[in-house]
């Protein structure tokens, strides 16, 4: 958290809304551990990471939607037969990412 806190405070100080995405559950092999975080502002700027780069794009889109709606979201990413998941993790693991406005 320390490594992204400064950036978040800078964004908030200039009046930007900020969404925080946190890995809250992992299954199997995943690039980042539970607690990994990424912050996104309404301009689409981001800091930190929740994976090795494979789902960040999708999380940024969801985070901007959360900033608009104000409603938190729990997102699932993983390898699955369910083709509804169009964004997946190449490592074979799965993660849940909680996205909230702060």
């Amino acid at each position, binding site marked *: *958290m*320390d490594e992204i*806190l400064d950036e*978040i*405070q800078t964004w*908030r100080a200039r009046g930007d809304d900020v969404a925080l995405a*946190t890995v*809250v*559950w992992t299954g199997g092999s995943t690039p980042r551990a*539970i*607690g990994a975080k990424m912050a996104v502002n309404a301009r689409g700027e981001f800091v930190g990471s929740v994976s090795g780069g494979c789902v960040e794009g999708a999380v940024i889109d969801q985070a901007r939607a959360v900033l608009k709606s104000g*409603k*938190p979201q*729990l997102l699932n990413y993983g390898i699955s037969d369910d083709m509804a998941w169009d964004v997946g993790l190449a490592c074979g693991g799965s993660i*849940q990412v*909680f996205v*909230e*406005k*702060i």
Partner: protein
Amino acid sequence: MSEWFDQFAELCAAKKVFALATVVRGENLGAKLIIHPDGTYSGLLGDGALTESVIGDAVRLMALEQSETIAYDDVHVFIETYAPPPRLLIVGGVHTAIPLAQYAQLLGFRVTIVDGRGRFATRERFPDVDELIVEWPDDVIPRLQIDQSTYVVVLTHDPKFDLPTLKALATTQPRYIGAMGSRETRRQHMAELRAQGVSDEFLKTVYGPVGLDLGGRSPAEMALAIMAQIIAVRYNRRGGHLMHAAAE
């Protein structure tokens, strides 16, 4: 809206031990609780029974420095624990200490350098370390509140500093002690300290020759081998190639 965040940022900045609990599934999605190690808390999760269960689990997880999402019937709560960053105490402001301090800071350690020799422990050599102490290590060590979040590396590589330093460390309980020096140096140090009454139990815990077996001999390469060993100790691993490690 973001009252919790201000408190959270403050606790992070103050390097406190605490837990942040968030409802990530079910009723009151996004509700937050901040819990302190003594069980006091602020925030609101919904009903009192849930709050009480979450506080109990948060206190348990803080002691383990672990974070976890726990299901309480239909409500899932992510309990994330925060602990102050570990500290690296480097005894001896020698050449290898310079890259070692840099690696340690990059890895989130607070760094303290102790050296009785003012020419070694200077701000010119260590511009960014958190603490620079020009004093004899054996005088300072009792004051440094060395605990399980402290890692110590003795780089002085000279018996007149190494021996009193290790003797002083024998009365503390850091997570790790590494001491620079060859197998022969280690053998001599151990014999001398044993003769001075330092216990074998303690001496066995000192890593020396220090570092993982990476093969490099430059100061930066040695510093990397030492830092890699510290990370391995932190997470209870042996080090080595992941491709040769047993699958979890």
